[in-house]
């Protein structure tokens, strides 16, 4: 190839879009609800896993709910946000 082809100059583009944090918040919030609901049932229907008495599912569900809820609320599309 004798002819040189210079790289195309890069342009910066800004789109007004929902941030990725919003999608993460929604997904984790839904997961939190499901896991908490299922894990609370384990008090009456225990699952044969090691250290079941610590109810990891309940803790995990609460953490996901708080995390997901916080992100969803914080990044919920509102008027005036860029």
């Amino acid at each position: 190839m004798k002819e040189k082809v210079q790289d195309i100059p890069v342009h910066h583009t800004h789109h007004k879009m929902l941030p990725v944090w919003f999608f993460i918040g929604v997904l984790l919030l839904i997961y939190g609800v499901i896991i908490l609901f299922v894990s609370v049932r384990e008090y009456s229907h225990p699952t044969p896993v090691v250290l079941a008495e610590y109810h990891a599912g309940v803790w995990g569900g609460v953490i996901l709910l708080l995390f997901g809820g916080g992100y969803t609320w914080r990044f919920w599309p509102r008027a005036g946000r860029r």
Partner: protein
Amino acid sequence: MSASLSMLAMWLTDENRMISLQTPDLLIIVIYFVMVLGIGFYLRRFANTSDDFFMAGRDMSAWVAGLSFLSANLGALELMGWAAAAYQYGILATHFYWIAAFPSMVFLGLVMMPFYYISNTHSVPGYLQLRYGEATRALSGISFAFMTVLMSGINMYAMALVMKVVLGWNIHFSIWISSLTVAVYVTLGGLYSAIFNEVLQFFLIWLGALTIPVLGMIEAGGWNGLVAKIHQRVQGDYVHLWSPMSTFAGNPMGVHWTGILFGLGGVIAFGYWTTDFLVVQRAMAAKDLRSAKMAPIIASYFKMFVPLIVILPGLLALGLLPFKLVPESAVGPGLHSYNEVLPLMLARYCGPGLLGLGVTALIAGFMSGMAGNVSAFATVWTYDIYRPYLNRTGTDKHYLLVGRWCTILGVIASIGTAYLVTHFKSIMDYMQALVSFFIAPLFATVILGMLWKRATAKGGFWGLLAGTLSSVAMYTAVVVNPAALRYLALSPDAKPMAENLYRALWSWIICVVVTVIVSLCTTPKTEKELQGLVYGFTSIPSDKGLAFYKRPIFWGAGVAVIFAVLQYIFW
């Protein structure tokens, strides 16, 4: 809904599975697929130009680019493979997360990223074209595109195999569903989709896997309890990083500290983190130079803590599982291989719901790895192969369309590779070795190009070629005669792991030597031609006007301190 998910579970699975998923677990997996496809359809409207599609509009914040940079490397194969390595080799496997990450990631941010960013290139082969010319770009671009799409296929096959062994899922179902999903969301949103899903995957992996170290450490009675349990079960030093590495025979990995420090930390890590376009592309998509510099530094902090969810589960399995795991070749009825460590530990502690989250994290890891490969392939193919060699005069819309078709083509080629590997499994080992041939010499070529103004086009091309061919020759020599390893690693006690490290080191040295010799015998570029490409001829914006806590070098120093403390604790 519940009944249909149960029927789906019955249709998908057979009785020879390690984990039984219940309806909530399947619901969590289905919701993940719906979410990633939804994100793809949402982002479709923003991918209207080639810059949008290939570079995500260069509009990513430092945090998004940084998490995506890390997640592109945090695939499920990586997680499961290194958890297995931790079971086999103990805490030595952590070297691949610490010495093999922090120095090279910080170096990329502070030293190399300004050249990638200021040169306004779209890719690493694109930088090589600007610095060395077409021949070097062609060599690097074609090899990268070829390897990337094949590795994507290998990942896909590995995912299908894991899903079959762990969940009992039909192998064809796993391959087609995951590929179609990736094809849809990357074709629609390009790098936007790939980055969004990588950041999503980052959260899923941490939240899905964190149960294991937390409950594992409770069960083991803390770190001291775990060390005592490991000593009861296995002989040898599995809990120290550097002290067993004074000889090849003194550690389960069969590696000397020089191999880890120079081969792994000095060459392989720098080659991977600073020149593999799959990861560098994420940092190049940052919205400004400071964000591009911060992206790999942010990633390096999280990388330092990944051993919590990868290495620690392997060590916990070594100390706590009531049975011993065996190599893949020795697996028989009732036996599990090292590679099943992570799913076994998930099943040990996680009930319904949490188990679904853990499995979803693995699926997300596989799929985002595939998406990363395919999006990098589409970029390099379009900008570094199609545009310079096949059609120089297309419009932006045309290249955007080519990018979308390349994505589909990449997925089809990946599916083909996956089925090829299904029939010829040894290809997998050869392909992974093949990828490693390019990394070390490429780093030498790029870093010489950035820091040494005298490096010439011919020097760059012949150095890269010589380094790559020498790596192939060393690999072949050891395959033909395994005893040759003693000459490569300079010790009769070296084990196969040492081969990769020393092969990389030698091929890097050969590339540097050939590049320097050929460059000194050929005509260099003029200073005008080197503007924006080489140290000394590039005006890099200074960070001195920023508050100290906003400077990339401050955060780079912070991760260095954490690194030093961790090395001291586990020395």
